[in-house]
């Protein structure tokens, strides 16, 4: 008989230390060995992981009040501007914000050595960060400037809030032009000199639940080395299924997550300030989702292998920057991981932008947390829209 489980049943087993948890790699082997039905009977949870640059990341900070008080309408942290157009002594620091006087791309390609993501890493590492703030002065907040040192422990709150993380799938980036280009997917050599790809394929959270049957508001996750939550769909959440020439569904793509967690619990191993030459700064974020095996269908997707998961190949020389759409075909993650793919008859060497070894480590860490009973599954109060919702991006004219 095919198994059905509830979140409550799985959590009861976790509390008793009886839950059977496998990583997304381990479950592949188990299913090859025992088949879907038997594995679904045995396994309660599959853990996933990804460790990848995620630009839409940042942190809400509350610094505490000075005497006399200041409203803080402009804020800089280690000379990187933070957004302070919210309540007194609150600010949002974004990962891609650059230090004042950074030369940007004025000497192309720029190095972008320090930005918001590096401040976030410094804070998480417990380093002292220079806070500078200015204001216009009010009756209730008379002070006009302050400059002081802070650490993560000193301030009231630091809430990592990443409005678009954990892309379900991503383009394999190539360059058809005759010039080297510098992108958020790395440096791409001319005339199909290399191909860079992201996500960790068979370990990636949203590739293992393409219809988003288990992910929603309140899903508890591994975030930056601490515990975080899915709080909404991410921006540009347009989930769909990639299909082959015959219209057969292959792989999920287009879903994104909004995630949130307490920065004070996190670890600089899993939140790393990152610089892409010629592009800018971004934050490399570690995220892991547990997939509850509620039924055989969910397991069948969670057990998909790199051979069964595909990425679209995209030209970043022209088609992507010009918004022309279309792709150069699909390629399996198994092929991408082998180190070379064939595009337009040419053999092109591949390299990852996401760290597969670190994604694997996240899936193991999350597995251990659950096995030890430290991490219960969060039942979503509402699932995210899946491919069936037909969400599509709007163009800006």
């Amino acid at each position: 008989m095919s198994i059905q489980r509830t979140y409550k049943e799985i959590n009861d087993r976790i509390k008793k230390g009886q839950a059977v948890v496998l990583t997304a790699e381990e479950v592949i082997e188990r299913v090859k060995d025992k088949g879907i039905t038997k594995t679904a009977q045995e396994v309660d949870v599959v853990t996933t992981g990804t460790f990848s640059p995620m630009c839409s990341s940042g942190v809400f900070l509350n610094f505490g009040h000075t005497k006399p008080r200041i409203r803080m309408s402009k804020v800089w942290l280690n000379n990187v501007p933070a957004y302070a157009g919210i309540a007194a002594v609150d600010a949002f620091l974004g990962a891609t914000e650059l230090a004042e006087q950074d030369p940007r791309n004025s000497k192309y390609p720029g190095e972008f050595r320090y930005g918001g993501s590096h401040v976030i890493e410094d804070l998480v590492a417990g380093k002292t960060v220079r806070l500078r703030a200015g204001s216009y002065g009010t009756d209730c907040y008379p002070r006009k400037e302050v400059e002081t040192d802070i650490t993560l422990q000193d301030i009231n709150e630091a809430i990592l809030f990443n409005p678009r993380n954990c892309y379900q799938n991503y383009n394999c980036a190539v360059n058809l032009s005759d010039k080297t280009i510098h992108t958020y997917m790395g440096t791409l050599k001319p005339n199909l000199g290399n191909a860079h790809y992201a996500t960790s394929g068979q370990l990636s959270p949203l590739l293992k639940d393409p219809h988003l049957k288990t992910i929603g508001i309140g899903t508890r996750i591994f975030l930056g080395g601490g515990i975080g939550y899915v709080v909404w769909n991410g921006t540009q959440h347009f989930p769909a299924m990639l299909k082959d020439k015959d219209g057969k569904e292959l792989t999920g793509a287009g879903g994104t997550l909004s995630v949130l967690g307490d920065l004070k619990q996190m670890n600089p191993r899993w939140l790393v300030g990152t610089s892409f030459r010629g592009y800018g700064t971004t934050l490399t974020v570690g995220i892991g989702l547990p997939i509850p095996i509620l039924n055989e269908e969910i397991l069948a997707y969670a057990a998909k292998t790199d051979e069964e998961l595909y990425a679209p190949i995209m030209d970043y020389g022209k088609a992507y920057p010009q918004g022309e759409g279309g792709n150069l075909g699909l390629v399996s993650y198994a092929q991408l991981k082998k180190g070379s793919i064939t595009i337009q008859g040419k053999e092109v060497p591949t390299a990852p932008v996401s760290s597969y070894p670190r994604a694997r480590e996240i899936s193991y860490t999350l597995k251990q947390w659950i096995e030890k009973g430290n991490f219960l599954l969060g039942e979503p109060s509402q699932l995210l829209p899946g491919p069936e919702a037909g969400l599509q991006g709007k163009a800006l004219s």
Partner: protein
Amino acid sequence: MAPEKIVLRFGPETADKPIIYHLAKEYNLVINIVKASINPHKEGTMVLELTGERYEEGIDFLRQQGITVRSLAQEVVRNEEKCTQCGQCTVHCPTKALYIERPSMEVKFNGDECILCLMCLKICPVHAMEVRMLSEL
């Protein structure tokens, strides 16, 4: 006298000249070829250890031939703490000193293969690749 370790980079116009012969015969240098490779465009690199009193003259001779000569008095090292094991560097490293071990997908660095082109310092998004002067060792 300790041998001097150098890297030569040469183009198609010099790749077929008997450079090593001249260094030994005319400048009386003791030569140990540590590594040599030529790509399909006939550009090549060679790592040599040279010993001899006329070392400086030998280097001048190489430069006159249009060969780029760099000392290996510095080396590239990987900061293991910083490296996130992404692997982006591997496709940009001309000698595969940086490579991915499969199927684990771990990123390895073999300093012996490094020719100090310093491309990885530009590529690495977390600045994990660093240059170190050998005298600091």
